[in-house]
């Protein structure tokens, strides 16, 4: 437990130190922090509940649109916008969870794909509200908590996003360390047996699903606020897949998977898109293959095994 607390502290410390180490890459850092929060929320569903879904972008996108529309039409105050984004995504989580969580495996993957496509097309058709294919434009955010105005260098954006991610991690940590988190692991490991010990499996999965949706919605809201724009592809299947790839890369159900997967994926994407724009997806694919074959539990598991060999600690 002490080692885990130390690593938890290291994660938060890394968020604080990163902009000092790489001040020229604050925009990239902000992007990493936001997708890491989204991947962290997906980890609750994929890693802890054992439900594979390709629809997570629906929650991210709805959170982004809700926060963007709220900023345009109601209040430009960012913290209120975060709550609105999280609440909108949670509502979608309640509605879609009632249908999606009746199925498992391939059916669930297909239904989650359908969900994100329906939500994306709905956003596209509601052009008067969402800006349609042109995206939601004209957002101008007020200073965070009335004190910190977003600056051109992206310092406030980064710190704001990093603080939200740190808070998101505290919520995530509290959940996975709770009895609730343990029962989710039980469901992942043997759902039928959990029913036979009296676990209301469906209700518990629904709660986890809605919490994950809300977290993804907050990540989307952050994205809308720091970019002051929402693109239609925030709701895309592609983005869902990217988040899932990040999680697999980092290690699903392993506490720090999102924190490793997101930076590795985004930095590689940024580097390869610049160096080899025609083939960068090929390199990402090869990396994923390497992970699947040589480190099936993701980078976290691989580093954990390495650390165990050296010092007997497990990540």
């Amino acid at each position, binding site marked *: 437990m002490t080692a885990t607390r130390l690593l938890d502290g290291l994660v938060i410390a890394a968020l604080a130190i990163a902009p000092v180490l790489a001040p020229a890459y604050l925009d990239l850092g902000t992007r990493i922090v936001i997708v890491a929060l989204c991947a962290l929320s997906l980890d609750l569903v994929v890693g802890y509940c054992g439900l594979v879904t390709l629809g997570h972008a629906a929650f991210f996108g709805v959170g982004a649109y809700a926060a963007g529309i709220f900023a345009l039409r109601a209040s430009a105050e960012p913290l209120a916008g975060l709550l609105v984004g999280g609440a909108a995504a949670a509502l979608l989580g309640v509605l879609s969870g009632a249908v999606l969580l009746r199925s498992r495996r391939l059916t669930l993957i297909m239904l989650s794909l359908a969900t994100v496509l329906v939500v994306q097309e709905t956003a596209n058709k509601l052009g008067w509200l969402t800006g349609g294919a042109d995206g939601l434009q004209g957002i101008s955010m007020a200073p965070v908590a009335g004190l910190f105005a977003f600056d051109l260098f992206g310092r406030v954006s980064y710190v704001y996003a990093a603080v939200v991610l740190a808070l998101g991690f505290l919520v995530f940590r509290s959940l996975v360390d709770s*009895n*609730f988190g*343990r029962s989710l692991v039980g469901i992942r490991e*043997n759902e*039928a*047996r*959990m029913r*036979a010990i*009296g676990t*209301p499996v469906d209700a518990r999965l629904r709660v986890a699903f809605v919490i994950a949706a809300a977290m993804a919605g907050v990540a989307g809201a952050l994205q809308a606020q720091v970019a002051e724009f929402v693109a239609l592809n925030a709701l895309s299947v592609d983005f869902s897949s990217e988040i899932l790839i990040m999680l697999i890369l980092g290690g699903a159900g392993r506490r720090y998977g999102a924190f490793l997967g997101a930076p590795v994926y985004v930095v590689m994407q940024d580097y390869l898109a610049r160096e080899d724009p025609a083939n960068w997806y090929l390199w990402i694919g090869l990396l994923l293959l390497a992970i699947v074959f040589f480190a099936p539990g993701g980078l976290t598991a691989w580093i954990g095994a390495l650390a165990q060999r050296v010092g007997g600690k497990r990540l």
Partner: protein
Amino acid sequence: MELRGLSKRFGALDVIRDVSFLLEEGARCALIGPNGAGKTTLINLISGRLAPTSGEIRIGGRNVTAMAEAARVKAGIGRTFQITNLFRRLTVGENVALAVAEHAGVAGRLRPAPRMRARVDARVSEVLATLRLEDERNRRVDVLPYGVQRMVELAIALALEPAVLLLDEPAAGVPADDVAVIFAAIEKLPASMAVLLIEHDIDIVFRFASRVAVLVAGRILVEGTPAEIREHAQVRALYLGESGHA
């Protein structure tokens, strides 16, 4: 627990036919019958894994027939599985803790609570001590010998403190030495707990049970004390045979 006219049909196949059965508080009953008689199906109907085609299941006078499996556990039914059904990648302690937390009604708590955790851990220790599993507490289930896995199966059921415990061949596939350990544990179950045992070893059945029901082709052929069953001509002819072993 009482079964009233319970039936289960899979398509054109009647697997359980009009079974009525009373299991009183603290009873030690056994259900025997040839392979395919419907014993495990009956357990699955009682535990809620399968829905009956007709009939009623009552616990303490309360009709639980429409209840889902999880709700029936809360109503007091616990079971073990014929084929070990555990959380294989978790430790023995974690396996039992899931059941303890669920039974204590704290498994859905969203925040870590050290005091509650300590209470769960203490109860896990008690259950493991009952079955002499303390030394295995931190070992992953999938590396344990099969006999120990069967004990963990029993430990999970005991952690639920059921009013009615359904034991589906608890010693199936277990080496002879471990069978004695498992049945020593079963014999020490709380006196108030009603136990329904499915077991193929007729010697164990006659030693354990005060009442025995014989299930043949989905119907209870006869029910009585071990002595009555032993002497029942139809049971001898149809089921026990000359060897006296099922």
